[in-house]
């Protein structure tokens, strides 16, 4: 069941929850990355995403007006109340899948921030202007790895292609229009996500081409995370992320 109905609130939760969940996924690489430099890179990217999520969820809490702050929204909601796109909750898989997802999602964020700078909500516009600077580094890092691995050894190419075949169908959700999207665009609150597809394709396709990867044909599959209907993976992720604040309500460092 949807926990909230106000379209602008839904819109901000989609942004904040997607950043939060990808940040949590990337932080799972701590202690497991292939080399120390990538350990740092993934952790730093995760930290930026968490920082963006904090700002966005704080804004969502203000808009909701029910007294919930960033922590209450992050730690005390159940999976069906999360509005992140399904793409970001999928397990990390190998390093290839992780960097490819970062390319697909962070390139999408780059389009989003550009559109949101003109938001009628001054706070959202400020968050977008700030986040855009960080996201460029995330996209650059992911694009470099996609090319290096895609146009690398037989093994790395094959893993990148598998990653693309697996993840690509989930990108359709990003650009599927719905009532939340239309309401945000109609009121100047934020761009309709569907309108960002062309810019996203223009950013992502040349990188995939340089990486010698074949983009899969479109399918009818549509994931539904942003509407609150998630894969089985989100519950496990949240169980780990939320266990401490739920076990020790009100605990402080």
């Amino acid at each position, binding site marked *: 069941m949807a926990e909230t109905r106000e379209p602008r609130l839904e819109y901000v939760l989609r942004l904040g929850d997607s950043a939060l969940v990808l940040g949590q996924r990337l932080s799972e690489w701590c202690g497991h990355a292939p080399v120390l430099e990538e350990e740092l890179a993934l952790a730093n990217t995760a930290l930026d995403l968490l920082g963006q999520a904090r700002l966005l969820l704080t804004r969502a809490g203000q808009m909701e007006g029910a007294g919930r702050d960033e922590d209450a929204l992050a730690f005390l909601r159940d999976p069906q109340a999360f509005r992140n796109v399904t793409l970001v909750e999928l397990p990390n898989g190998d390093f290839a899948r992780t960097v490819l997802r970062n390319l697909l999602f962070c390139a999408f964020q780059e389009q989003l921030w550009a559109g949101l700078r003109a938001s009628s909500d001054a706070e959202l516009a400020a968050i977008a202007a*700030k986040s855009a600077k960080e996201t460029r580094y995330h996209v650059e890092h992911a694009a470099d790895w996609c090319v290096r691995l895609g146009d690398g050894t037989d093994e790395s190419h094959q893993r990148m292609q598998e990653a693309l075949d697996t993840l690509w169908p989930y990108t359709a959700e990003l650009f599927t229009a719905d009532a939340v999207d239309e309401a945000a665009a109609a009121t100047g609150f934020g761009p309709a996500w569907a309108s960002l597809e062309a810019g996203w394709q223009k950013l992502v396709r040349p*990188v995939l081409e340089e990486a010698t990867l074949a983009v899969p044909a479109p399918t009818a599959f549509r994931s539904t995370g942003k509407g609150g209907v998630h894969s089985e993976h989100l519950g496990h992720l949240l169980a780990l992320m939320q266990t401490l604040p739920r076990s020790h309500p009100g605990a402080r460092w």
Partner: protein
Amino acid sequence: MLSSARAWEVLATVPDPEIPVLSVCDLGIVRHVQADDEGVAVTLTPTYSGCPATEAIAADVRAALVEAGAGSVEVQTRLDPPWTTDWISEAGQEKLRRYGIAPPHTLQPGAPRPVRLVPRAVACPRCASKRTTRLSAFGSTACKALYRCEDCREPFDYFKPL
């Protein structure tokens, strides 16, 4: 009672927790200071959204001003316009270099930037050689990249332009 000028002097002694060689003023994150009979109001602009030092900085600023005799201290956060490395003072850039961190290049506002990495000539802060190689886009903190000098062979951090 603290004057604005005195408040700025105090702030110039508050170090950044991650890069203590820089004060919060060198870093360019102090955007506004207002002092009156009531106390001091300071406006800070965070560097990176995820910078773990942000809250520590606000606490340090408050403590330093209270210590200096400001009655009440209010620390506000302002996101817009977003912080840029161009706000690091010239003195701050020189302090960074002497500390072993290559200072950031100046950004050209609005200039298009390609998706893929463009190698930059980053001078080694130790020997000034420009024969350097980037080892990782992300260094010990989000604001830095890791480089190596091919002449003196020392690794060093580069403060990334933001």
